[in-house]
């Protein structure tokens, strides 16, 4: 029973990390309707930024979160403005290729600049364990979980209580009607991509203490993030949260009860089933909204 509880807690905390990575993706996918295949590379860029800041300026990764979030926000804005915006009316296949090209270019650029070796950020005690009852937890994972909850609640408040947030939601629901109501759609998209990328920056800062950094680390996360986003429903923050918890639990449970190397098979199969049966996801708006 203790083992089961430990596995469940591991799963939930893992889910917390996934929330941080997939929240940005669900915003971008849900509002701009672009499958950002470069999402993992944005995480990778963020992690390298955290690494550089901690190595050369001695910043604690959590402190580095501030500048890294801003840095990724600017990158997100630039991507939307200079790459995606000119393609706004192009075929969706063309848009996909743009993000794929960006992903390949970024990943290999990192390979050129940093080489393939793994580097690590100083853990500064974040990888230490503590106990709640019989369950073992790692500080860094706990921090990620709590930040994930805060992030989701905060973004939800932004989306529901502010004008800009409502403008973003309106644009995601009807791209043609929104400008008729005075919403500057280009600005909404730029801001959304920026926010989405900023979330990934936050994820990078919090993930860096527990994962090594190397050029292809993005690929480990991006597919899982897509699974979560589709499962939870594009554009739904609470969907991303629920999806992350589900995937985290499946990951943890199947890793222990089935086989460690078949974890991903389980959730890819679930992904395929969702795609076929209900592609709009658990919290999506139903058929036709995709």
């Amino acid at each position, binding site marked *: 029973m203790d083992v089961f509880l430990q596995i469940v807690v591991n799963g939930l905390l893992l889910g917390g990390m996934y929330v941080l990575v997939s929240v940005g993706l669900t915003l971008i996918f849900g509002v701009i309707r672009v499958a950002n295949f470069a999402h993992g590379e944005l995480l990778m860029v963020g992690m390298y930024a955290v690494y550089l800041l901690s190595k050369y300026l001695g910043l604690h990764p959590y402190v580095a979160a501030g500048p890294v979030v801003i840095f990724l926000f600017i990158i997100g804005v630039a991507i939307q403005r200079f790459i995606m915006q000119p393609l706004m009316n192009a075929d969706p296949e*063309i848009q996909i*290729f743009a993000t794929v090209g960006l992903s*390949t*270019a970024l990943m*290999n650029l990192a390979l050129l600049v940093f080489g393939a070796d793994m580097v690590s950020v100083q853990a500064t005690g974040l990888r230490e364990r503590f106990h709640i009852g019989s369950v073992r937890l790692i500080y860094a994972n706990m921090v990620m979980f709590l930040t994930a909850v805060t992030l989701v609640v905060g973004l939800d408040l932004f989306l529901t209580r502010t004008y800009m947030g409502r403008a973003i939601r309106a644009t995601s629901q009807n791209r043609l009607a929104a400008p008729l109501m005075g919403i500057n759609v280009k600005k909404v998209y730029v801001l959304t991509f920026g926010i989405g990328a900023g979330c990934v920056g936050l994820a990078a800062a919090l993930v860096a203490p527990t994962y090594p950094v190397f050029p292809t680390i993005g690929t480990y996360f991006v597919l899982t993030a897509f699974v979560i986003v*589709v499962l939870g429903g594009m554009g739904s923050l609470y969907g991303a949260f629920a999806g992350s918890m589900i995937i985290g639990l499946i990951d943890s449970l199947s890793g222990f009860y089935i086989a460690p190397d078949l974890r991903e*098979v389980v959730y890819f199969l679930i992904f395929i089933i969702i795609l076929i049966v209900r592609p709009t996801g658990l919290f999506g708006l139903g058929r036709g909204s995709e």
Partner: protein
Amino acid sequence: MNQDIVIGRGVSASTRGNPLRALVEPRVYLSLAAILLLLAIPVGVDSAFVYHVFVTICLYGALATAWNIVGGYAGQLSLGHATFYGIGGYTSVLLLDHYQISPWVSMWIGAALAAAVGVAISYPCLRLRGPFFALGSIAFLEVFRLLVTHESDLTGGASGLIVPLKIGWKWMIFREKYPYLLIAFGFLSVTLLVSLAIRKSRFGYHLVAVREREDAAMAAGINTVKVKLLAVLISAALTAMVGSFHAMYTTFIDPPTMFSLEFSVQIAMFALIGGLGTFAGPLAGTLLVVPITELARGWLGGAAGGLHGFVYGAVLLLIVLMLPAGIVGRFGGALARLVSRLPGARPTEDPEVTAELTPVVTAAAAGQPVLVAKNIVKRFGGLAATDNVSLELRKGEILGLIGPNGAGKTTVFNLLSGFLTPDSGTVEVVNESGQTVSPKAPHGFAHAGIGRTFQIVKPFGKLTVLENIMIGALHKCRTISEARCKALRVARHVRLYDDRHTIASNLTVSGLKRLEVARILAMEPQILLLDEVMAGQNQTDVNLAVEMIRNIRDKGVSVIAIEHNMHAIMKVSDRVVVFNSGRVIAEGAPEDVVQDPAVIEAYLGEEYMHAQAI
């Protein structure tokens, strides 16, 4: 000079029936010469490195061309094509390892396996659009990779498999380099030939139609699911065969290399860079990118880890932003025009045709019911859009369907043409041989002889007017040239002959409406469902439309027409059915229906009565 923009140049009159004469055409002899260079250059230079580069070009070109059949022609963006490549590679190596089967034999087994897998995984995913299909294909690729890694007893798992080194043509393993080049060139030629054959065939036209507008393709009688699955089958088989050969070439396989997402993305990339959906595009993209990166890798060596990947990504981004149609898409037309000035080119002319429509002969006698709907019901949520409707269409009559907006007229059309299935009730059609059938799905209804137009026109916007009509003509015609003749005739009949080479999206509203009718007429339906063909047109065009409908009927076609133009519908209909809120509220001769108080209240209004002085 004829230029079919999207589908490709028509066969010139003088070469029809004699393919060897085609060799004289500059397009053909230049292309052959260019392809043969791929063999000539490495043999001439005779360096192991150059051989390797050209083998890579041939193989990637073959893979990209095979991918293009699904990703370009069929428009389904697969980013998991390495699934098939891996199946081919592993099948060959395992069969060689355990049973000493020659790769020349096992590659066919691999191809069959990959084709079956392809159909199985694509069928449920066909409804998925754009990014969702891509994600699905990636998910399947990952599942395969993980399963192959896991089943290490069978497949060698993560440590991979070494190909047993048996030398000779039987085993596809050689000491010299040039046999590899010959085989790789062979694969490239085969994939190019298959791709070309598809392009010029009826199947190719069907693929374009399905890619451009799936519902209009369904209305033209195309079984869109079958068409897409066939494309996947061919593409998967070709990809697997290349995978088998490549395994022999590299002599070592493991799951990450054989089921590689990066590799899947690369072959798709080459097709896009060259021109998605064009014939020569994938090879052109490969020719542009591979030599650059292989040379860079050769010169800079290990210090440039990641350089080739960066070049791929950067080139892709540049092409997407500046030349989304790809190299061939953007420059192909201009190049073709240049090439056609060379000696040997023959101008292609459209044959002269009359405007006579083929009479439609069916087994049914005049006045007999040919389309019968009994008690059909269709609900959307709580709303009964069609509420217990029964109607019949008799042979040779023009039936008018009128009623206020939202009455459910188009829903009934959808039910009568297979685009919607009734929740209860039946729709029966007496087909041309006199049998009564209950068709399913739009293409089933089309085979029973029903053609329908859409209220909001659905042209194949990027194709020319002639190509649009040909898509309909291919329903009954088996060859492209037959379809072209019929399409020209129909174009004359609807007064679109002069616009036949105009891109459809450039037509006026009146032209688009006529094109919609033309495409369906070319199918030679026995029953025609016209949804508001007169909407938004001026009086002259309305009168011409009335005349056109009468001509169509005189040729033996039975017509149901939805219209709001009361004047026109009264002139042209033999009988009228009136709808309101999903139900039939009146039926009969036009003069009688118009005086029915229920109809006046629901639709016509008192003013109409006074205006008609009835």
